[in-house]
Structures are given as structure tokens and as C-alpha cells.
């Protein structure tokens, strides 16, 4: 979308403009061309298991040659074919682990057509699978089952459209698609493609998945020069059962139960609503709002649950370090804000925040929190470094929040600890954290927890060396850490200070590889066919999702295409939210950095501006197809894709210092320069399918919000 990521000179990079929310079309086009030209890595894809793949020089494996039941009459239709389906003898279950109380999990014996014998074989028993098999296999009782390989289903999906049709849909010419696909398949396994927030769209599941399918076609996972997927990476033990302390559990810990208010990670078919409807003989679909069998906690979905009192009434909302009104698409729409302010939606709202963000400004109680210079944290660095690494943040200045006791300041952790102690929850107080020596250690302050996590990091694997006396003196570490002396055992400090003085623990550069292979690779299978997805259902229509990556243009919950509901001739633009330099999506207190990009703009392409008679600097209205509008200053530039409105994140604040607040006898905030620019999220689309609810336009299998894409028009004011 934005021509910003490229250096000015040299031919090492090229900007390829793409229409927002059409990554699936581009990816599928590449897949089609690669398969059509036999440039997919058959040696890799035909490896039926990891051991074979490794023998062939790869460091990961896929289920490309595994068989999928494609037989509507079969009870296991859409599932991967298993040994039991064919009546094949399966290896005996391993001896149950006497230490585990749970029964041994039933293993999956997936089936491939073994190249050598031409017969079905359990994937672990084959040296090479047929990736293009389709046909009928005889099952035990003489009946047959129709099957095809995962690879073939991907191929069929990719071949469902001509390259020219994909090209038209994504706005990238066929020759450019071929050029990129050619390049992508010209470097063996030394190639990679991955995406992050840019995939957030109402069809973003495919937009994200297609990266990994492309990498799978060439066997690039976990190879040097290939792809180590972004999220993950190897870290040291910290908030886990660790070498010094067990920070994963405590005596009296209760298992987490129930459905998250965000409706994520919980299939509709498991809800009481579904069961009741079925019991009453009704069609259980649609659910009132979508449910997502996949995904973890999601603030953008939670907001819409709260404002609709569904699946349950929010009682106490606790917000920490978050500003979802700025970051969650459609959350800042007027009608959503109106509901959030109602007591019947949020009876009690407590926020713990260092700033008066937009979300915090709605709270009943505000607990002052510490900033990054005053607080603890062990943030993950994902796969940005190929070795084992845990980074670390610790208070380098005395917090500016109120001192609540000697050496104790108001902050998120101390608030939780104090409330937990007051209401008598287990796991807090003097007897809280289990040590490796079977003794319970106190949790009375933030440092009691974080320093123990750092001790785990320091003692994990090969124990970290002791810090040198000179380093302690040079960095003044003795004075800085003196107040926390009792949070660790005396023999832990020299190692913990070693880690703290370095801002974390990092394996030596380059040590993440053995030869060409990433040594912390996940042994799991990269699914070209996802059985989990293929057997999950759209909670509105009750229709199952495809098990393979596809090109699914943006559509509402009931399947209505966005382009049909809001045709392009009336709504010619899609939105693209991008991160400006020196702007956080939500909050940024650094006034020096704020000066760099004082405001944002409504950015459109030069050719399109001409077509609509718009000029750089015009004051314009951006109108969303499902209602709501905002106004900003137009920026016309060639470095933006056709059909796109680019809007940088982090602008359009109405709180966070833009508005003045009276705190005691002090007036704080009221700086208009903080409130410059526009917030696209404030007008992002809602899904008109849900007539009685306000629901942000989202992807139906995961709840990914429509941050990019949608349908808009621009009017000159």
C-alpha cells in the first residue's frame, strides 16, 4: 500500500501495490503459477513425515501427501483419512507414563498413498507419498471411500480461477505475479514470506495463511535463509515451571473455565445456546453474534460482546495498558461508544493506566500505573533473533505514581496483589510461589514475581555466569537493586544481575542453527489441509469452512459479498491502516517523536485524485459504506495503491491529553496538537447482517477485524 519501506536507490527492493484485503488472490495466483510450472518442491511435499523430510535435507514437513476424505456420505467427510477408516492395524499405544494421571492421547495415524507400493500406508511407515492421488479406497467391510491428497485440494482451489482473474481481483498485473513467483522459486529453501498486522482484514485468515502455504511449497521452514515464522522463537524458561521457581501454578490454583467474552477459541456448537436450540428442535444457526472455534483472547471481539450483552453481561471490566478504542476497528464508532458508556453494559469499569487514554477515560476508577521506565517485563522478541533469547525490562527510575508504602508504588501488579490478598485468593501473600526446593516464597510486590522469573531465565539451560564486581560498580547495580534484596535468595543474585545488566539473556549470535537447520524448529506438521478448520462452521450460516487456503473476497457473516452490497462504482476505496514512523497505534507520550509526523492524512493515489477532481491539501470527508464519516486533509501521492485510502495509525485522539481533565486542583492535558489527524478505526465497517446488534465487520473463522479493506468514498468539503 505504502511506498515507504524501500530505500531510494538500487534494485534490491520493489514496491508492488496491491488492493487492500486481496492478498489471498495474489497468493493463490502465485500458488497456481508455481504448481502449473512444476516449481513446487516435490521432494519436500512428498515427505510423509518429519524423519523423511529431514533425510532429504529439509527441516519441517507438511501434510501435502496425506489423504482427505472427500465423500459427503462418509461419517468422517472433510476429515483427514486415518488408519481406522481403512481398518488398517495401528501400532500399539505407547506405555502410559506412570507420572501422568491423564490417559495417553489417542494418536492420529494419517494415511498416504505410498509411492513404492502404490498402496495406502500410515504416514510414519512410508518413505514417499503420492501428492496428487485421488480415488476410491476400499474400506474393511468392502465399501469404498473417496479421498484426495491435501496438495490436490490446494491445487484445485488455486486452479479455480485463471491468473488473469486473480490479477484483476488484486490489482497486480499477471506479468508481475509471474515475476515474483519465478523469483520466489529461484532460491531453493532460502526464501521466506510472512505477515503481521497488515493481514488484519475481514478475509485475513487466508491473507495470513497463504504466506505459510507459499513457504511450504518450497520447503523453506526452519532453514537458514528460509522462514522461522514470526511468532514463536526460542526463549528461556521464565513464567513457567522453571529451574528455580514454578511460576505456572501455585497451591489452590483454579483451572480457567468457561467461554471468553470475546467468543474466541470456543466453537458455537459447544455453547449452551446451540445445545438448547438443538434440544428444542430448532435450527441452531445463526448464533446471535459469531463464535470462533479458533483464536485466543481478542479485545476487538470483546468490545462488541460487551456492547451487545452477549454472550453474557459484562460485570466488571478491567482494562490494563490497552486502548482498544484506538486500536480495534469500528470500536470508536459513535454508536459503540454510546453503548460502552451505559451502566447496563459495563456496571463497573476499572482501568489501570499510566495515561488518560480514550478507553481509560470511560472508566469509573483509574489506578495509576507505571511506564516502561518504571516497570518490569519480559517481552518476547519472537523470531527476530534466531537463537534462544529472553529480553527484560526493569525499573530504572523511581515510579512517579503515588507511594503506597515504603518503597511500594501504585501499579498494575501491586493493585492485583493487594486486591487478591484482601479477598483471600490463593497464590498471593507470604506463602505463594513454589520454589524448586519445595518451599513457598512470598508474592507481595511486583518484584517478587518478576525477579523470580528472571532467576528462572538465569538458571535455565547452562546456568548464566556470575556478574563481575566491576560491572556492578560500573552500572551502580547494587544501589539500584538494593530495595529488592529479599525477593531472591542470596545465591541467585549474581546470576540474576548478570541477566539484568544485559537487558535479558541472549544466546550467541548465529547459535540458533546447526548447519543450515534452525535448531529450535517446531516438529509439528505444517497443514496444507487444516482438518480443524474444515470441520469448524461459520456460526451464522452453519456452513463449514474450507480446509485449505483460498481466495475469499470480503464478505459479511451471511456470505453476502461486500462488493455486491456496496459496489465499487459507488464505494471506490478500500482502507489501509498503516503504522507511521514514531507513532504507536494507541498511545505515544514522547513529544519529541510526536513532532516528526504531527498529523496524518487521507492519502490517495495521484491518478485517482485526478479522476475524482481532488487536489492535494483538500479538506475531505471519508464516508464508510455502513454509515459514519470523518474528515481530514487529502494527501495525493503516487506511492499509494489505486483504490486505496491510506491512513496512518495513532492519530485522531480525543483523549490522551487532547482534552483537559481536572485532577484535584490541577488541570491536566488540553494539548490540541495531540488530537490532530483522523482515526480510520472510528469509521471502519460494521456488519449489516446483524440487524439487532452492533457488530464490527470481521473474519468468520477467527474474528480477525476489518482493519484493512472495507468500502469507502471521499467527498470534498
Amino acid at each position, binding site marked *: 500500500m505504502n511506498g515507504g519501506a524501500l*530505500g*531510494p*536507490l538500487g534494485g534490491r527492493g520493489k514496491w508492488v501495490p496491491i488492493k487492500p484485503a486481496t492478498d489471498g488472490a495474489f497468493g493463490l495466483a502465485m500458488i497456481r503459477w508455481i504448481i502449473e510450472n512444476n516449481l513446487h518442491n516435490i521432494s519436500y511435499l512428498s515427505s510423509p513425515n518429519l524423519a523423511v523430510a529431514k533425510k532429504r535435507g529439509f527441516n519441517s514437513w507438511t501434510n501435502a501427501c496425506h489423504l482427505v476424505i472427500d465423500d459427503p456420505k462418509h461419517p468422517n467427510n472433510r476429515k483427514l483419512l486415518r488408519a481406522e477408516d481403512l481398518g488398517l492395524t495401528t501400532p500399539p499405544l505407547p506405555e502410559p507414563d506412570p507420572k501422568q494421571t491423564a490417559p495417553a492421547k489417542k494418536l492420529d495415524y494419517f494415511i498416504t498413498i505410498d509411492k513404492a507400493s502404490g498402496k495406502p500406508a500410515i504416514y510414519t511407515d512410508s518413505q514417499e507419498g503420492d501428492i496428487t492421488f485421488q480415488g476410491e479406497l476400499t474400506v474393511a467391510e468392502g465399501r469404498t471411500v473417496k479421498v484426495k491428497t491435501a496438495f490436490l485440494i490446494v491445487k484445485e482451489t488455486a486452479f479455480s480461477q485463471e491468473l488473469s482473474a486473480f490479477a484483476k481481483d488484486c490489482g497486480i498485473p499477471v506479468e508481475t505475479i509471474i515475476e515474483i513467483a519465478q523469483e520466489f522459486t529461484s532460491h531453493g529453501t532460502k526464501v521466506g514470506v510472512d505477515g503481521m498486522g497488515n493481514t488484519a482484514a475481514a478475509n485475513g485468515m487466508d491473507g495470513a495463511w497463504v504466506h505459510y502455504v507459499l513457504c511450504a511449497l518450497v520447503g523453506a521452514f526452519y532453514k537458514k535463509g528460509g522462514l522461522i515464522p514470526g511468532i514463536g522463537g526460542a526463549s528461556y524458561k521464565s513464567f513457567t515451571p522453571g529451574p528455580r521457581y514454578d511460576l505456572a501454578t501455585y497451591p489452590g490454583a483454579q483451572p480457567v473455565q468457561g467461554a471468553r467474552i470475546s467468543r474466541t477459541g470456543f466453537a458455537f456448537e459447544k455453547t449452551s445456546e446451540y445445545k438448547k436450540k438443538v434440544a428444542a428442535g430448532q435450527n441452531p444457526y445463526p448464533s446471535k453474534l459469531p463464535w470462533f472455534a479458533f483464536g485466543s483472547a481478542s479485545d476487538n471481539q470483546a468490545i462488541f460482546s460487551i456492547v451487545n450483552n452477549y454472550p453474557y453481561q459484562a460485570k466488571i471490566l478491567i482494562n490494563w495498558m490497552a486502548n482498544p478504542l484506538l486500536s480495534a476497528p469500528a470500536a470508536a464508532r459513535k454508536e459503540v461508544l454510546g453503548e460502552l458508556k451505559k451502566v447496563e453494559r459495563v456496571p463497573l469499569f476499572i482501568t489501570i493506566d499510566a495515561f488518560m487514554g480514550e478507553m481509560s477515560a470511560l472508566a469509573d476508577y483509574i489506578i495509576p500505573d507505571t511506564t516502561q521506565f518504571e516497570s518490569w517485563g519480559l517481552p518476547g522478541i519472537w523470531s527476530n533473533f534466531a537463537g534462544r533469547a529472553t529480553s527484560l525490562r526493569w525499573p530504572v527510575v523511581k515510579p512517579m505514581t503515588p507511594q503506597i508504602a515504603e518503597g511500594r508504588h501504585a501499579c498494575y501488579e501491586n493493585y492485583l496483589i493487594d486486591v487478591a490478598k484482601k479477598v483471600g485468593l490463593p497464590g498471593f501473600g507470604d506463602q505463594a510461589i513454589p520454589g524448586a526446593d519445595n518451599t513457598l516464597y512470598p508474592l507481595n510486590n511486583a518484584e517478587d514475581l518478576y525477579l523470580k522469573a528472571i532467576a528462572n531465565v538465569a538458571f535455565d539451560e547452562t546456568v548464566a555466569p556470575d556478574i563481575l564486581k566491576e560491572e556492578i560498580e560500573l552500572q551502580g547495580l547494587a544501589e539500584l537493586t538494593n530495595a529488592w534484596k529479599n525477593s531472591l535468595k542470596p545465591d541467585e543474585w549474581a546470576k540474576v544481575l548478570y541477566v539484568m545488566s544485559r537487558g535479558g539473556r541472549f544466546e550467541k549470535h548465529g547459535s540458533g542453527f546447526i548447519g543450515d537447520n534452525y535448531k529450535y524448529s517446531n516438529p509439528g506438521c505444517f497443514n496444507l489441509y487444516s482438518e480443524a478448520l474444515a470441520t469448524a462452521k461459520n456460526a451464522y450460516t452453519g456452513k463449514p469452512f474450507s480446509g485449505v487456503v483460498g481466495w475469499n473476497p470480503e464478505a459479511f457473516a451471511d456470505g453476502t459479498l461486500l462488493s455486491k452490497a456496496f459496489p465499487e462504482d459507488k464505494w471506490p476505496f478500500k482502507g489501509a491502516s498503516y503504522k507511521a514512523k514514531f507513532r504507536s497505534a494507541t498511545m505515544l507520550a514522547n513529544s519529541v517523536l510526536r513532532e516528526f509526523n504531527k498529523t496524518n492524512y487521507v492519502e490517495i493515489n495521484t491518478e485517482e485524485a485526478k479522476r475524482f477532481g481532488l487536489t492535494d491539501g483538500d479538506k475531505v470527508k471519508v464516508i464508510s459504506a455502513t454509515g459514519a464519516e470523518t474528515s481530514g486533509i487529502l494527501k495525493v501521492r*503516487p506511492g499509494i495503491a489505486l483504490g486505496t485510502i491510506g491512513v496512518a495509525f495513532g492519530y485522531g485522539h480525543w483523549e490522551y491529553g487532547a482534552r483537559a481533565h481536572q485532577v484535584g486542583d490541577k488541570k491536566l492535558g488540553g494539548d490540541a496538537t495531540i488530537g490532530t489527524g483522523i482515526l480510520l478505526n472510528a469509521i471502519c465497517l460494521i456488519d449489516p447482517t446483524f440487524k439487532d446488534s452492533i457488530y464490527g465487520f470481521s473474519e468468520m473463522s477467527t474474528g480477525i477485524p476489518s482493519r484493512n479493506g472495507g468500502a469507502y468514498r471521499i467527498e470534498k468539503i
Partner: protein
Amino acid sequence: MPENKSHYGMVIDLRLCVGCHACTVACKMENNLPEGFFRSWVVEADKGEYPTVTRVKLPRLCNQCESAPCEQVCPVKATHRDEGGVVVVDSKKCIGCRYCISACPYDARYIHPKKGTADKCNLCLERVKGGLMPACVSTCIAHARYFGDLNDPMSEVSQLLSENSYQVLRSELGTKPSVFYIGLDGALAGADYANLAKRR
């Protein structure tokens, strides 16, 4: 300038600049600059015709001209030369008349809102005298900025200039800048510099 003296200058390799603005931040911090003003900054502009578009990043600062218009117009000689021929402003002498600000073709000067006198980049001369690099050079993550003595043929800057083709900004004015850019011709060709003319 006499031949035997040093001549401080800077070389910026635009092939390496990624537009991270670390130089801008380091300069603001090092020199404790007032809010809204910069001695060193980076401008960006789209370049090319759709869809073959890239984004130019051009770090800017006082060009330390050998024939400096600012020096020539200063009525009180507040703008003068220091070590290495660096153009500096003596804020004790400066009367804030703004002649230099109008004269500078590089938009490098401003009136310090608190002091009321002209201010601009001095190549972090105090750091240089103390044996350090200018803040922008030492912080550059891409190693795109180099500082040194242009009169010393063995200096990094002289070596870079002898090995690469380079340009200066607005050479037609004859100001003889001591700030050289490698790849400036490529960066400027076809770019929309409406945004470059003025300080951000």
C-alpha cells in the same frame, strides 16, 4: 581556507539510508533543541511513476558551505568559522536580524525561540573537539553518515569521495557545500520535492 588546516565535512551515503530518523532524534537530544525545531532532519518523498514508485529519504542539515551566504550577510559577524572551517553562530553577538535565515538556500537555520538568536547545526563541534563523532554520525544505524577532515586524503570521508561519485545539494548556487551525498542524483531524479523545500 589555508591548505594545511583541516576542513571538516560530512558524507551521506543515500544508498544505505533507511529513513529511520535516528539522526534527527540524536541531534535533538544531544543539542537539547527546542520543541518544533531541528538542526538535522530527514525528508521523504515519493519518486517515480505509478506503479514504479519508491520513497526517497534525504537526510538534511547545514551544508557547511565554503562560500556561505549566511556568513556573507551577517551584519555583526556572529556567523563565523571555527575549527575545521565549521560555520558557527556566536549567540552572544547575534542580534536575531534573520538575514542569515533568508540567505540560507538549505533552510538550515531558525531563530531559537528562547534565545532569540540564529541557530543551526555546527557538526557537534564540541563533541568533535573532544574526539567524538557528531551525534548523528555515531547513532546512524545504517552507517550511512560519515564525518572527517576533507583535507586529509586518508580520512574516511576523503576515501569515500575518491571511490564514489557524489553530488551536493543545489550545486548551481556555487555555495560549495561540505556536505556530500553519494547517490543524490539518483535520489533526486524524478522525485516530487514539493515536500523537500521547507523544513518539516
